[in-house]
């Protein structure tokens, strides 16, 4: 039963991932990417990684992909031009893909050995719910890495703000305090009829 569900979700994830690359319409590509994330979350859920699965849905599907969709809907991307470049860059892309695949395969192989050693421990964590356990590990053993990731994100935020900041005077903005302080007596004059 569980295996059948895994096969279904894995197939959905793979097909959706393929459709992301193959679809001609960028909006449709983003929607297939969302479907791919969903199927991945479902497979994680079956591995008892409920915290990770729900975080994937919450962060990627619920926020990041909405922004993707937002941008793609506003832009009028011509896929024909993008496709023309595809053949030129395809050798590099292919090499990158093989490198990433080799990395993933390596990690999976190592992980299987690790899983054999700590299998009992892992299944015990899965039983009690892994959100609390994950927090414990992140905030003790990996605190430095966690803080570094936080600083990295902060730098990214500041960089984004710097990129879009166009100086204080080049924009016409409404001053909210001025609007709130507006007094109808100074704005409206009653003109008598005669």
């Amino acid at each position, binding site marked *: 039963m569980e295996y059948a569900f895994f096969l279904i979700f894995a197939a959905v994830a793979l097909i959706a991932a393929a459709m992301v690359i193959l679809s001609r319409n960028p909006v449709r590509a983003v*929607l297939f990417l969302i479907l791919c994330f969903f199927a991945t979350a479902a497979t994680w859920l079956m591995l008892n990684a409920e*915290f990770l699965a*729900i*975080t994937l849905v*919450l962060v990627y*599907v619920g926020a990041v992909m*909405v922004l993707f*969709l*937002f941008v793609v*809907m506003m832009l009028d991307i011509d896929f024909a031009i993008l496709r023309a470049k595809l053949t030129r860059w395809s050798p590099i892309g292919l090499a990158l893909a093989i490198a990433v695949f080799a990395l993933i395969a390596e990690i999976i192989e190592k992980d299987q050995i690790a899983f054999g050693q700590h299998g009992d421990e892992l299944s015990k964590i899965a039983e009690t719910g892994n959100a609390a356990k994950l927090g414990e590990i992140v905030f003790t053993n990996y605190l430095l890495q966690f803080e570094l990731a936080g600083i990295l994100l902060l730098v990214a935020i500041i960089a984004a703000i710097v990129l879009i900041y166009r100086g204080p005077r080049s924009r016409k903005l409404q001053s909210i305090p001025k609007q709130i302080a507006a007094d109808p007596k100074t704005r409206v004059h009653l003109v008598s009829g005669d």
Partner: protein
Amino acid sequence: MTQVLIYLIAIVATTISLIITVILYTYAERKIIGFMQDRIGPNRVGPIGILQPVADVVKLLLKEVIRPSASNIYLFIIAPVLALAPALAAWAVIPINNGWVLADINVGLLYVLAMTSLGVYGIVIAGWASNSKYALLGAIRSSAQIISYEIPMAFAVLGVLMAAQSMNLTTIVEKQHGGILHWYWLPLLPLLVVYWVSAVAETNRLPFDVAEGESEIVAGFHVEYSGIPFALFFLAEYINMILVCFIAVLLFAGGWLSPFEGIPVLNKVFSWVPNVVWMFAKVAFFMLSFLWFRATFPRYRYDQLMRLGWKIFIPLTLLWIVVEAILIQLQLPPWFSI
């Protein structure tokens, strides 16, 4: 097999009771706002207009479904389903009494947040697939608004999570035992205010309904929808409203706990009231406040809405989380003492 059957029956029962609640809620909305604005409200169909929602449902079911010729057919049809499905799915983890819950999972609170954040896809896809200017404007406004208000909402929920030390909704309610002053609304009052305003914004209700904005963009994202697809959007919006009311009660107002717990005389007097009644009474109060807002406030301008979310709510919640962390460290009774 019987287990699956029981779950199926429970799911169908939840859905049907939600639909009936929505039908009654729309009637209550029109009547109550009518009274607030010194009108009568619907009074033609049935005694005091009680059959008006039934007439509305029949009307929506019988109307022709029109599809704009330049629209994207698959996405146009799937959009209302995408709006309704997460609204219903979130109910799996909502308890209405101790143990009365379909899925008592550890990360219930996160699951609810994830599901409510998915509702935006129905709106965005509807707006894009309609191939209409007003609909696209509504969709873009909605996506920006929901992303902005998800952040203060998540911070407000994080405050409750810190206080209860759990993400399980039943545990969060059980931690609030001991009468009305022990509920989290008192120590976390700023978070309750932020949560509630964000909830109104997330459900696209007045005064934050810029995604629909009749006076600016006709009907926003569902301008091209008619008949049953429109009814699905309508249903999704109202089910989401009821959902955020339940979450507000569970997180801040003690869920199914009696407000008179621990008070000598009143506790005895009201001890006959079942827990579920307390739950529904509190939910009814929050549902009423939705209508109250709608009748009271004019619509926010779009830039004011964004300013409120980013420049006021997010700093406020961040500040209060720091204050709360200090209170928890001090073990301040009665809320934070273990």
